[in-house]
């Protein structure tokens, strides 16, 4: 009888402890009891897909594709969605009039308090890591930079730069700075420029 209880106790605790406590760190994919519909054979954002030859679920638009909602060819394009990315060759989309950088803000944007607030927020997110919250080029990341210092945006050089050129710099990058057209919508780029102008005015130089 003694043996019986002993063996029983050992067997039960072995079962109870087999799977370990909650919150243990592990790196193999999580166990799923009924995985049937948890992982469906559908194309998901940023996920691979065996269906396509190159294994990517996301498809690149075929060459010459015109984005939905774009009037083509275009002189002007109105921002229609919050996610507007460059979709034309207007000043609003490129910062250029033909071969020249334009000065001032395009008529598609209205520079007001809310617009500046938006610019401030986006500047803090996207620009300030390198250029600093005040734009002086001493952001937290730039301290880890081994090579040339980040541009001081309060400099007379940037102050004199036409808005269109700043737009183009944000869009395509300049020198060591990479392009930010993928993560900043067109309108946000203009908002950042508007906020940058405010910073430059406030710096008083």
């Amino acid at each position, binding site marked *: *009888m003694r043996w*019986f209880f002993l063996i*029983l106790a050992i*067997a*039960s605790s072995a*079962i*109870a402890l*087999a*799977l370990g406590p*909650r*919150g*243990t*760190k*592990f*790196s193999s*994919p*999580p*166990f*799923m*009891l009924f995985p049937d*519909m*948890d*992982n*469906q054979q*559908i194309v*998901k*954002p*940023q*996920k*691979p897909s065996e269906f396509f030859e190159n294994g*990517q679920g996301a498809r690149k638009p075929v060459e010459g594709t015109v984005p939905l909602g774009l009037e083509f060819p275009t002189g002007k394009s109105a921002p229609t969605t*919050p*996610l507007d990315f460059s979709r034309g060759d207007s000043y609003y989309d490129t910062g250029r009039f033909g071969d020249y950088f334009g000065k001032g803000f395009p008529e598609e944007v209205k520079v007001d308090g809310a617009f500046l607030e938006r610019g401030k*927020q986006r500047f*803090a*997110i*996207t620009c300030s*890591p390198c250029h600093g919250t005040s734009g002086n080029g001493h952001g*937290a*990341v730039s301290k*880890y*930079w*081994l*090579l040339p210092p980040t541009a001081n945006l309060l400099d007379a050089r940037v102050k004199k730069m036409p808005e269109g050129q700043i737009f183009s710099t944000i869009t395509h*990058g300049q020198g*060591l*700075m*990479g*392009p*930010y057209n*993928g*993560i*900043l919508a067109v309108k946000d780029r203009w908002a950042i420029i508007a906020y940058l102008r405010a910073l430059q005015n406030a710096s008083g130089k």
Partner: protein
Amino acid sequence: MGNIFPRWTNLLAIKILVGLMALGTCVVAVAWYSWTPKHTRVGYMPEQPIPFDHSLHAGQLGMDCRYCHSQVENSPHSNLPAAQVCWNCHGPGKAKADSPKLELLRQAMDVNYEGYTGKPIEWVQVHKVPDYAHFTHQAHVNRGVSCAECHGRVDQMPVVVHEKPLSMSWCLECHRDPGKSLRPLDEITNLAWKAEDLDSKAFYAYLAEKMETSVSKLEKADEGKKWDRELIGAHLQKAWSVHPPQDCASCHY
């Protein structure tokens, strides 16, 4: 005629019964404890192709979550950054350009690199809800639910680990009582935010404007109440009229 069954068999039936009951109870207990996302998902810490350190980028450098996860406010899916975004800081001549850890990034981005393949980096997804449940990031972050509510203090994680269960009951806990998970909109990506640090004057001014009432009225109503998460959340819930849906079809569609 002697006994057909020896003496020890007298208790055998009872022993088998007791044994099965005890072991069965154990199995049920283990299933109850372990076959839940609290056990199967919490603690998931997969190895990433590039050992990206959130505690360095988001913690030490103080970069905003939205620098990389740039579309989280506009999309149900919180995007992983394109390799270009990494490349903007880790390209040639820039931070840690020669680090062996960034080999895959160079292969993906550097056209002049001998090992260039142009293949995207295959990050491993850590947080996932089943495909029949639709979670939208956009709706949550634009209504005062911080990243930290579901992902924990990622800014302190060298390797991202699944911290919350993301189970249905866990979702519902918050959908039934959202107040305690809300915070002001400009603090969404400030994972270290503490309710106690919130400036009450500015907060009341914001509320008064939003709810078309006066600051003094609001302050009077709150007299003697503790300035904490619950109070702030309750105000925000009212000001934004946050009513999270609880019917099946709000997530399972």
